[in-house]
């Protein structure tokens, strides 16, 4: 069905374009004279007076909650590596960006008492990573996090909000364990699973947790 659009009947004065010109000039002049620079993302354009442009390296973007940045390994408050090298993240990773080298039978012992092991090497190819967050989701130890700014213990000065990963070659974009731990920072562990397990085990004397069985 055809719709008949009712055209507005313009007066002679309006048809001279002069009111149109004047209104156009008023609007553009108003915007032209709004010299305020942009605040960070959340406050921007609240009253339509701020510049929409973010002067990027000088002004940083506020990462919203739930943002999925680059996956990094975290340490607990005792600076111990939380990862126990279970390789679930490696298994779940859709683009196969994670590669974990387990410590092997006589590798370095885990930092935390009670934890069975920790990875000898942990590599994430940031060029392959699709930042889906499956690794964070699957991790039973809360040891890997997509970099974002809302978890407990987040330090605005030290922690990086990596939404702009850069590198000059492919090798540089493969992040190893040290780099991942350094960038991941500290994640305050409230539960301290392994301390409790060790205590339980010691109380029950069922198994010498934390001691290397071979050493006996």
């Amino acid at each position, binding site marked *: 069905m055809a719709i008949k659009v009712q055209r507005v009947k313009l007066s002679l004065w309006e048809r001279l374009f002069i009111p149109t*010109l004047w209104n*156009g*000039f008023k609007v*553009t002049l108003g915007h*032209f004279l*709004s010299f305020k620079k942009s605040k960070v993302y959340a406050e921007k354009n609240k009253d339509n007076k*701020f510049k*929409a*442009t973010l002067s990027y390296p000088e002004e940083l973007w506020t990462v919203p909650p739930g943002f999925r940045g680059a996956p990094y390994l975290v340490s607990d408050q005792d600076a111990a590596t939380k990862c126990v090298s279970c390789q679930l993240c490696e298994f779940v990773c859709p683009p196969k960006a994670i590669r974990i080298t387990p410590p092997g039978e006589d590798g370095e012992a885990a930092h935390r008492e009670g934890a069975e092991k920790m990875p000898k090497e942990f590599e994430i190819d940031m060029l392959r990573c699709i930042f889906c967050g499956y690794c964070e989701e699957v991790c039973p130890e809360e040891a890997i996090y997509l970099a974002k700014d809302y978890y407990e213990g987040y330090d605005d000065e030290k922690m990086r909000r990596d939404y702009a990963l850069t590198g000059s070659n492919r090798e540089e974009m493969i992040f190893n364990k040290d780099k991942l731990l350094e960038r991941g920072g500290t994640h305050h562990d409230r539960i301290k699973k392994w301390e409790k397990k060790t205590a339980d085990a010691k109380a029950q004397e069922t198994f010498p947790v934390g001691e290397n069985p071979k050493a006996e």
Partner: protein
Amino acid sequence: MTNWFYNLTPNEQFAIFSLLKIVIAVFAVVLPMVAYSVVAERRISAWIQDRIGPNRVGPFGLLQPAADGLKFILKEDFTPAYARKAYFWLAPAVAMVPALLTLAVIPFGSKLGSQQAVIADLNVGILFTLGIVSLSVYGIVLAGYASNSKYPFLGSIRSSAQMISYEIAMGMSVIPVFMLVGDLNLSAVIEYQKNGMWLILKQPIAFVIFLVAAFAETNRLPFDMPEAESELVGGYHTEYSSMKFALFFLGEYAAMIAVSAMMVVLFLGGWTLPFAGLNETATSLGMGLLQVGIFIGKLLLFMGLFIWVRWMLPRFRYDQLMDIGWKRFVPLALANIVVTAIYLYLTHGK
């Protein structure tokens, strides 16, 4: 050192001075102005749209033209296989040259030393200008034809119709000016406006028609039919790349400068200001340079207007554009001629 120069015949001296004036006017004044009007356009449009605009290259982004130029030169100069090669190469030059040629007859100042501050003091200045301006349509038509592709073709068809239509209104709007002045020489037009009675006050209708026609002639919004990014991709320069595209782009700005200069001369009194003796022919070099500065200042005013209007008004529909051109401005310009003629007959005639 200077002896050999005084030994030359007046004709040879004239040739040397003319060459000097051309080189300085084109390479030291017009081309930098073209480059910086592109930056001005980008900054002003950014401010109007609540953005910041290019501010990274040099202080306040002032070296942006250098970066742009370098980029254009480094781009691949691509010629489509189906394009008509000779015309394809010719079109950008044809778009750029008329804009620069127009400036030859514009008096940009009174006197610089002993030399008149105009490259060619033609006694048919305005006819020359209108003739050259109508050449600029060929650049666009050739580009559209040579590209052998539908968007450029549509763009060039639109532009040829538009530019030819508005040329008529433009030509007719200046007739009353010359009826009042009684001379076709552009220096004489300025002479006439020396007393501060600029022709914008005496011929406001002619000024408005000329201004609108100037927008249409230079393909600026709200009359940018030939380009019409949202409809025709890029219009006539869709198939162009690298320096050839840059020539079209700069040609547009050079044409804007040319028509701005014409409007300054015809309606805003050229290099004169009606006080402090600035409306008399300069006696010293400093005074001459100041008057050139006044001229450029008035010109920049018009450039600002060109840029500002682009963000103020939406594009006209094609039939509306033709409607305004033929049914409004041409009759209005004709009426203006008749009224001016009657006025002149009553006051000066008999």
